[in-house]
């Protein structure tokens, strides 16, 4: 079978993403017409005062939310590609190795006790706290998974350590939510199931800049990650500095996933199913998976957010429920398959 051109797949994904994003901007508790979207942009460009309510809803609530979905989705999917390449195994994702729950714990700790510590780096305090939490949890999982007898990290022990550390940090989040006064931190569903409903422009700027920078760095590692598929030893024989590569990949992954988690909570399965699905149609070349994953991840999260708003409209579902509903069956099907065919 002739492989589909990567560029064509990429363009198709981009088109799909743009259409879904537009649809997502229009639909919701308050429907917004195309004309209103256009007017809102015109007013924004001309610097006019915006009078209409719907235009204001679009610019202040809907648009940051849609964009947040795009960048968080991209970050989670690229995080998935990176972790899977690093562990040379297609069934790991940032959520399974503690990164997300650790980040949630760090962020919750800041919400509840931040004032007590008095540390303040402005808007960046929350993402930094999440990064620290994510790093601590990830390092703990890696440390526990390392067996004494040999240096190979078995995937089974990695996943089991992940379960233990996730349980620890999520109960930590539960405890903090229990004693919290801050209404956002108090909502345990926010942390465990995630939601894009609290998106605002300042948060978006942070997620957007961190995600873009990290994806740019990740793309430069694509070739080395490919070589890693042959094994660490083989990659070294192809001239790659393995310890440096591993450190880079872990840092990028933790930063990207932690910053997203700080603002939208823990959203599972995106990092798992997106790279899986792309591998089935295009193969495992990371030179495509990284940017293709960013596009598909962005689409999956945008579409999931749209569903989360529409299924029980005018009420909203946490987005983590939607991604799990789609992700779990896909994950099970993938587990049952022994081989990828394309």
């Amino acid at each position, binding site marked *: *079978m*002739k*492989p589909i051109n990567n560029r064509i797949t990429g363009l198709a994904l981009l088109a799909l993403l743009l259409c879904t994003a537009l649809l997502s901007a229009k639909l919701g508790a308050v429907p917004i017409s195309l004309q209103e979207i256009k007017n809102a942009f015109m007013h924004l460009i001309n610097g006019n005062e915006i009078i209409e309510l719907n235009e204001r809803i679009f610019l202040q609530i809907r648009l940051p939310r849609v964009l947040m979905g795009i960048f968080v989705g991209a970050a989670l999917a690229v995080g998935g590609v990176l972790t899977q390449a690093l562990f*040379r*195994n*297609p069934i790991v994702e940032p959520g399974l190795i503690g990164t997300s729950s650790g980040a949630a714990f760090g962020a919750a700790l800041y919400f509840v006790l931040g004032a007590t510590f008095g540390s303040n780096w402005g808007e960046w305090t929350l993402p930094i706290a999440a990064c620290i939490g994510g790093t601590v949890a990830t390092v703990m999982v890696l440390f526990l998974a390392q067996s004494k007898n040999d240096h190979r990290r078995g995937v089974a022990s990695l996943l089991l350590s992940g379960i233990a550390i996730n349980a620890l940090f999520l109960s930590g989040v539960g405890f903090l939510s229990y004693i919290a006064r801050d209404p956002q931190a108090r909502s345990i569903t926010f942390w465990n199931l995630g939601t894009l409903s609290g998106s605002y422009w300042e948060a978006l700027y942070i997620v957007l800049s961190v995600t873009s920078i990290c994806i740019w760095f990740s793309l430069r590692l694509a*070739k*080395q990650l*490919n*070589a890693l*598929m*042959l*094994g660490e*030893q*083989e990659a*070294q*024989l*192809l*001239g*790659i*500095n393995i310890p440096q590569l591993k450190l880079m990949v872990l840092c990028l992954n933790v930063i990207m996933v932690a910053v997203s988690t700080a603002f939208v909570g823990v959203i599972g399965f995106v990092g798992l199913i997106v790279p899986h699905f792309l*591998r*089935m149609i295009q*193969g*495992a*070349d990371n030179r495509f998976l990284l940017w293709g994953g960013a596009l598909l991840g962005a689409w999956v999260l945008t579409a999931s957010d749209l569903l989360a708003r529409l299924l029980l409209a005018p009420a909203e579902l946490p987005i983590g429920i939607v991604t799990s509903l789609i992700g779990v069956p896909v994950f099970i099907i993938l587990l049952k398959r022994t*081989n*990828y*065919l*394309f």
Partner: protein
Amino acid sequence: MISLENLTYHIKGKHLLESVSLAFEKGKMHIILGPNGAGKSTLIRLISGELKPSAGTIRYNDMPLHGISVKEQALFRAVLSQNLEVSFPLRVHEVVLMGRYPHFVGSPRAIDHEICEKSIHLFDLDELKNRNYLTLSGGEKQRVQFARVFAQIWEPIDGKPRVLLLDEPLTFLDLYYQYHLMKTIKTFMASNPDLTVIGVVHDIIIAAKFADQVVLMHQSKTFAQGPTHAVLNPENIHTVFKIMVEDQFIVK
């Protein structure tokens, strides 16, 4: 030329290699023979830098191996190891292209693609080019790995003599491909006189037919080294492998 000086390797009190001194002449095919546990694989993994010697030095053209960066080593030396496991679906040409990774930054150049095509053709893989590596048979996978390591050292870089290390490369291959591949390597060497090949092989007959030089290993030491016909005599084979052979069995 590659020279080894008093090369020793211990792990957990076990002496896997003891004080081995050897010289591998440039442009020749050297085959390392010996029974199981004689230290063949240890030797090749020390020469590739995968293992660090407990004592002794390895020199590539008078440069100590530890003084050459991993990146630079990959430019003139390729290694085909045992038991390569890949758990992701890659196309055959993508695996072969990995051999060119040390040579380009960012995207592959036209020359890299050209070399891959030639290497794929050399190992009879044209029809499998777009196949999923995971769906290939053991022998087909091995040929793909051959194409990858040859793509890596297809051309000399900065006039440095090239080296190819092979650790039991014929394991999954049927009789036809075992001979065919050895012949292919010899033909390639004839037109690339700077290429030195060092390989671990189990089959004495293959060694007798294709090696220029043979290293016979026995109990973690070199038992004999030299031109193939001189080393592979019935007495040596009897001492090392404990089997009796007749003279004409291995005569070229």
